[in-house]
């Protein structure tokens, strides 16, 4: 019976981690689904956001209250990044777009990681508000407060994003542009602006995982590790299918929790990547990918 309880506890943590993964993946999937860019620097941007919330936290701002500030800052940063670098790849064919955006992201990742290292050194940091250790019990399972808030925010966020994409003019233009950007342009959609805003939204969304990761622990060079989680979830959800991101994130969280349960914590980072290699080999279009070849 105790073993079952322990297993249940592992699953709870897995699910809560999974929501964080899903939120990392959301930003990556948004950009990938719309413009076939793979922003390899996304993890580093999350870490920069985490440093931002640490800065605000030391000035006495609650981590969750700092989300809007960081969101706006990252949104603007994303717009600048898009204008400077990513806007130059629009005209390339799909495979080249992935490749070139990946290379640019690779370079930017080096820039951001090393800048963060210079400014904040390589030490592990973490946000520690007074409620960081608070847990409460449901059916013998301990649930940390922070994880629960994270889950609620994730749910809220996905709803808002869904409304944005399905109910607004912007959402319609996003759908049009992601299906065929040339045709959308001919129909009078402002392709450049749609791209710009969706890229900036994607970078802005990094603010939520950055606070949640900040509440765990982070260092200047851990961006890659979080990008890996995100990309695994994105691939599991079929590359750019935003609605499958949340279940895929939970799936990854649970798989990881199970692997920690059976093989120990050292291979936690590897599990997701091994799963994704297997998935890619067995189902080249992702688990929940659309069965239509573009």
């Amino acid at each position, binding site marked *: 019976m105790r073993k079952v309880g322990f297993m249940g506890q592992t699953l709870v943590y897995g699910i809560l981690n999974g929501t964080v993964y899903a939120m990392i993946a959301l930003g990556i999937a948004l950009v990938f689904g719309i413009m076939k860019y793979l922003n390899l620097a996304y993890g580093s941007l999350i870490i920069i956001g985490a440093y931002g919330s640490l800065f605000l936290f030391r000035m006495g701002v609650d981590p969750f209250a700092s989300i809007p500030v960081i969101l706006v800052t990252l949104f603007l940063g994303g717009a600048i990044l898009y204008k400077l670098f990513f806007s130059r790849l629009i005209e390339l064919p799909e495979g080249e777009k992935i490749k070139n955006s990946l290379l640019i992201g690779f370079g930017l990742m*080096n820039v951001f990681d*090393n800048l963060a290292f210079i400014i904040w050194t390589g030490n592990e940091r973490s946000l520690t508000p007074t409620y960081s250790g608070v847990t409460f019990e449901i059916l013998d399972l301990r649930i940390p407060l922070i994880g629960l808030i994270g889950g609620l925010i994730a749910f809220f966020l996905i709803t808002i994003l869904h409304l944005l994409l399905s109910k607004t003019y912007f959402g319609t233009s996003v759908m049009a542009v992601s299906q065929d950007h040339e045709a959308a342009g001919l129909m009078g959609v402002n392709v450049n602006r749609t791209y710009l805003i969706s890229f900036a939204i994607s970078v802005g969304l990094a603010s939520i995982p950055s606070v949640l990761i900040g509440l765990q622990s982070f260092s200047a060079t851990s961006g890659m590790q979080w990008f890996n989680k995100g990309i*695994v979830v994105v691939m599991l959800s079929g590359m750019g299918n935003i609605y499958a991101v949340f279940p895929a994130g939970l799936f990854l969280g649970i798989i990881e929790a199970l692997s920690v349960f059976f093989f120990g914590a050292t*291979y936690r980072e590897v599990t997701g990547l091994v799963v994704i290699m297997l998935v890619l080999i067995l189902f*080249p279009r992702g688990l929940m990918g659309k069965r239509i070849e573009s």
Partner: protein
Amino acid sequence: MKDLRQLSIAVCVIGLLVFIPFVIRSEYLINLLIMFFLYSTIAQSWNLLGGFTGQVSLGHSAFFGMGDLMTRLLWTWKLPILLASFAGGVSSMLLAAIVGMPCLRMKRGYFPIGTLALAVIAQITIGNILPLPTYLPREYMEGYTHSSRYYLALSIAIVTLWVVWRTVNSRTGLAFLAIRNDEAAAEAMGIKTFKFKVKALLISAFLTGLGGSIFAYHQVSYYHEASFNLSWSFLPTLATFIGGLGTIIGPILGSVCFLTLNELFAITLGQIHLVIFGFSFVLIVLFLPGGLMSLFKQIKLPLSTRSLRGP
């Protein structure tokens, strides 16, 4: 006639390089040259896959580390270094065959992600399995000479250059180029694209493994994880892009530039030089996708003679 001229230039350069350890006594310079051979080896082999075949791999650190690990193990088990080095190359090739090949099966454009995943898996796994640093045993330390390292590095660099040059100027090379330029069209022309992509991957992994063996033979003590570090994926990519993607001279030129800039900035600027490298990499990908070679081509320097430039 042109071939003869090129051959004589090559012989002269190699002869010069062979005599350098007799003339230059400075260990610093010798080490610098060894690093140059190492960089140009891995950049050249990355270029075969990334530049000539168009399959950008971010997983070369796994192949590099594999070659290094196997060479180091066999060499410290008292195998002759040449044999150990060859075994290192073969083991990288095996790794590429087992895990790299499935990556090539992925939908177009996902190869970089798959190989990146491979590199990260390899790095974490090795960090967990072999957490301790490796030292050279004492009898190896006593026999340590820089010139022997130099000659191994030189010969591996030459072998790599020769293999890549031969491959590119053959029917296989033409198939590689066809795949790079338009995979669907190549398939339609009857080229078995998957077969040739695998071929490029295996050759490239083998040569990168040889590059890893230079590292294993040259370094005295390091953490095993260090040779699996992702920077070994970044470095050949950067060097090739600086010099010129899909050219023979490009990776060599890029390695020279990279090494020179590194020596100039690493000490004076510290960590900032990595920021500069990252930034210049982005700028080159965006604004000078042909690298320095495309500049030479524009101003028609002798370096850009047709057969050297490649396609």
